[in-house]
């Protein structure tokens, strides 16, 4: 019962490793290093890396920037709330407000084109969970996060809030339309 008794050998740290342990430690260490380099490799060669471009912002500032985009590029409105559907040109800055309890406005983007998507919250923490793609990004109030996105498939995407934000949390769903050529764009 020696794990619950003091080691019988006073110089226990001088004991040689067993081969099982030594081999396993070496294998596990190599695997950990592979996982470490995989993240760096993906930053160089992978296409899905989360941007870290972030600015301190205020609710007023972010709301006014979003409003300016809505005023300029609204193509129609949807739902009883008359949520604007905004179709900014490829390559431009697009904004999405997260607030209790909706994402505003609806975006309409072109497949295969790149946009700078700005995310911020007007109140609590929210979650940007793009479905069915399953891309999940935290939205923190007071911070404007700029994520460069390139949609690769046409269709209707939902943005589900997946950070608990109060009693109406489950009604907080936004939308992004991806238009253009059907199917995957390489």
């Amino acid at each position, binding site marked *: 019962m020696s794990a619950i008794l003091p080691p019988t050998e006073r110089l226990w740290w001088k004991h040689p490793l067993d081969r099982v342990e030594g081999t396993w430690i070496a294998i596990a260490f190599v695997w950990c290093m592979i996982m470490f380099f995989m993240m760096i490799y993906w930053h160089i060669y992978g296409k899905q*890396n989360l941007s870290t471009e972030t600015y301190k912002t205020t609710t007023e500032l972010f709301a006014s920037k979003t409003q300016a985009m809505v005023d300029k590029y609204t193509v129609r409105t949807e739902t009883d709330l008359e949520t604007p559907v905004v179709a900014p040109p490829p390559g431009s800055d697009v904004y999405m407000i997260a607030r209790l309890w909706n994402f505003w406005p609806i975006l309409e983007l072109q497949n295969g084109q790149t946009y700078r998507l700005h995310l911020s919250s007007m109140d609590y923490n929210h*979650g940007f969970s793009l479905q069915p793609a399953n891309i999940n990004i935290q939205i923190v109030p007071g911070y404007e996060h700029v994520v460069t996105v390139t949609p690769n498939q046409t269709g209707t995407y939902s943005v589900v809030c997946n950070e608990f934000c109060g009693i109406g949390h489950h009604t907080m769903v936004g939308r992004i339309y991806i238009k253009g050529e059907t199917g995957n764009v390489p």
Partner: protein
Amino acid sequence: MSHKTTYRTCPRSGLQFESQAEKLVLANAVAGVIFLLIGGILAIGVVLTRWPTIHWLEASTFYQVLTAHGLDMLVFWIIFFEIAILYFCSSTLLRCRIATPKVAWAAFALMVIGSVMNNVAVYQGGSSVMMTSYVPMMAAPSFYLGLILFAVGALIGCFVFFGTLVVAKREKTYQGSVPLVTFGAITAAIIAVFTIASGAIILIPTWMLSMNWIEHVDPLIYRVIWWAFGHSSQQINVAAHISIWYFVAAVVFGAKPMSERVSRGAFLLYIVFLQLASAHHILSDPGMSTEWKVLNTSYFMYFAVLASMIHGLTIPGAMEVAQRAKGYNKGLFEWLRKAPWGNPSFSGVFISIIGFGFLGGISGVMMGTEQLNMIIHNTIYVPGHFHATVVVGTTLSFMALTYFLIPVLFKRDIINPGLAKWQPYLFGLSMYFFCLVMMGAGTLGVSRRHWDMAFSGAALAYEWPGAAYLMMGLVGIAGIAAIAGGAIYIYLTVGSLLWGKRIAQTKISSEPTPIPVGAPSAAVQTYGSLGFAAPGTFVLAMVFLAAFVLYYFINWKYLSTLWGLS
């Protein structure tokens, strides 16, 4: 200085309990079990609401129940039980009196007051902020104050533990180094001090904010520091339950650690690296640089992962070596086949080791990989992961330890040994399934902490695929089975404490009997050069590695099909 106390030697185990320490271990363990009971009752509400066809509670009740479930299980049940383990690993294993028993009782009182205050705040409504209580969503002041008082109590408990180590050293109740299990407990206590300090740094200002004494707590800084508390507290659990694994291997098999150096070194890696892994909760957040994320999650976390992989090999390996020494030498796995599967202390620990590694460990590394985190963050995959680490890993280990402690500490026979034999299987295996289907639903994107996957009342509802509904239904079924397993544990523990047949105690003395000095066994490592001492365990480890590697690259493949992000 004289200390009036008595020492009881348990007739079954030979362990020696000092009377104050014994009462403190008992009080803290029982308080823990009471919170497990409350948390378990709350779990019924959580599970039956997330089971889509039942969808039982109203939204407000659901979030309230979920908040209380998280706190009672992750914080109160586990930390009360851990304080009991700390006192046990110091006073009992080192055969000395506990330092400052009055202070230890005061710490216990603070923890009780804090945990009750926090629970009351949640049940009053207005504090349904989840365990994480991210600002600027605010709870009642008593919510934070309760947590702070509890944390102060736990911190004092840690210092009583450290003090008891000093008593043992000074009164020479043991010679040489502390036992490995005590060493693991020291690791847990050191991480606990760091954890509680981080909690204080962020919860005290948040409490002041709730009192309107200060105006602002930055939401991002809150998240960064809160997770230094929130994640590290799980590392206390890891260090504690791995100590229990070693403990059970020692008492059930008489297993000797394969190498003290390796096992202790692995515990040290936890202290040095594990708490920094808290960064992996912020991988999908704005504001933190890529370098910071990669450094913290890889360089630092992977050394902690390495430590867990080492323990995952050395504990079953020590069992294998002990079994082979008894003659179970046939083939690769006779030692495992002939293990005491009817002993709930062993079966609980073994189910815990396998589940912690395969389900909790592998999924944890996926989430802790910077880019892969984006396909997992805040989905129900996350609770799938941490039920595998905390429930299968920690809670099941604590249950296994309890079956050992009932005759030894409670001085009672287990009331229904037949039921106890089955309890770890029912609880552990249904939790395996529960975690797997939760991770399945999370892979399809289903959100955690979400009342209604049908989005009733939403202007732009999203339709989850049928498979997601199926998975969540299975979560419900598996959850109910696990809750039944938990209820049996509570029944056996409380029932044995109240009605179990008393075990006569004869050996009580007023002086501690020091641990006899063991004779060095020179032959410990002679098999090492001939080949693998634990080939069966090594094969199991290779199976684990293969599963790990395969699943890791499957996730990268999945990530590569998504929208371009840069």
